[in-house]
């Protein structure tokens, strides 16, 4: 008990930074932001396929982390905690996007205008399209088309390289469920990418 209160020797760097930030150390929090902003951005970007929304999620994630530092349990991995916050924010946003239009469907009233061109903040500019190879675009579209529950698991598994156990901690679901979702997600993507394999 004494060790928990006095020393933080047994903790990882992130956990120690979180404990310092909890005491009001701004530089420690800046360090956490520095360590995680890109990871959370990539996670959100993959989940939402929209740069601005992804940036909003990053902001919201750090805001929540900051406000809830008191509630962080130092015996839990810090990464698990921050990924859980980030993932939940992404899932909330996906849910709020109730009407899911197909981006490729042409609009009835405006000829030649499809979903892509009315997305105000997406980065599907010709320049960025060129930067991605055809294969990479295919993979991205395949991930994008995954149903949300599989998308979350696949993004955490392949883009954040979390273990099955870590994903189970982040999503607060049994490992067996995560395993099933990874297997199904993998089969789904295999079918989507079949031509390229």
């Amino acid at each position, binding site marked *: 008990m004494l060790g928990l209160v006095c020393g933080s020797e047994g903790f990882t760097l992130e956990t120690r930074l979180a404990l310092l930030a909890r005491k009001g150390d701004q530089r420690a929090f800046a360090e956490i932001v520095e360590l995680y902003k890109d990871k959370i951005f990539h996670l959100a970007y993959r989940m939402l396929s929209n740069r601005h929304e992804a940036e909003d999620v990053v902001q919201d994630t750090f805001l929540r982390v900051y406000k809830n530092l008191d509630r962080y349990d130092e015996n839990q991995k810090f990464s698990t905690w921050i990924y859980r916050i980030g993932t939940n924010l992404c899932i909330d946003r996906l849910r709020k996007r109730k009407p899911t239009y197909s981006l490729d469907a042409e609009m009835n009233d405006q000829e030649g205008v499809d979903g892509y061109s009315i997305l105000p903040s997406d980065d599907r500019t010709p320049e960025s399209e060129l930067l991605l190879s055809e294969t990479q675009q295919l993979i991205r579209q395949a991930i994008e088309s995954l149903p949300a529950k599989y998308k979350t698991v696949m993004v955490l598994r392949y*883009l954040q390289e979390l273990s099955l156990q870590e994903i189970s901690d982040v999503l607060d679901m049994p490992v067996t469920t995560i395993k099933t979702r990874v297997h199904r997600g993998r089969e789904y993507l295999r079918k989507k990418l079949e031509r390229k394999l």
Partner: protein
Amino acid sequence: MDCKHALSLMHDYLDNELAPDQILLLKEHFAICPACMEHYDQLERTELMLFGTKTQHFEPISGFVTANIMASLPKKAKQRVWMQWMKNHPAVTVAAMFFMVMFISALSFWNQDRDLMVKGPDLDKLIIEGDKVIVPRGLSVAGDLTVQNGQAEVYGEVNGNLTVIDGSMNLASTAHISGQVTKIDEAMSWLWYRITHLFSEVSYR
């Protein structure tokens, strides 16, 4: 082994969760089933492609830096530490509040009375000149004498305690005080005097 079982083993293998003996079984199946072999090959390549996308970099728009994120946070860290401490130590907080209120009220009492005050028996026989209280020679005060905000000059007798608060005392060689002589200047000792006095008064009644 049927192909359905092989498929589930394939996924476990990709998850790195297949026991060595099971791996052997799977490999035996691959040797006799080209369809499963092909299926596994596709899964493995899918996985490689997925891992490969991780190296792709999307540069967040300019200005998306730590400083901006930090600037968007509410400024309340200082107060939070305080509040947290107070939440963790409610008893100490209450005690401190109580003490503070008591202290402030006591201090205001102390500052209030700046006028000369004399307490004791036979007051009519004392000589008071300005802020000077004189016990003349040959006079015997039958009890405790308290002088506040003034100078006490004793030439006679005091059959009890002499207490001078925020003032000075001058005892002549002829003075005789049977009790204690106390001089109080500071707020703290004055407070202590008040408290002990209060108790003795209570106990006498």
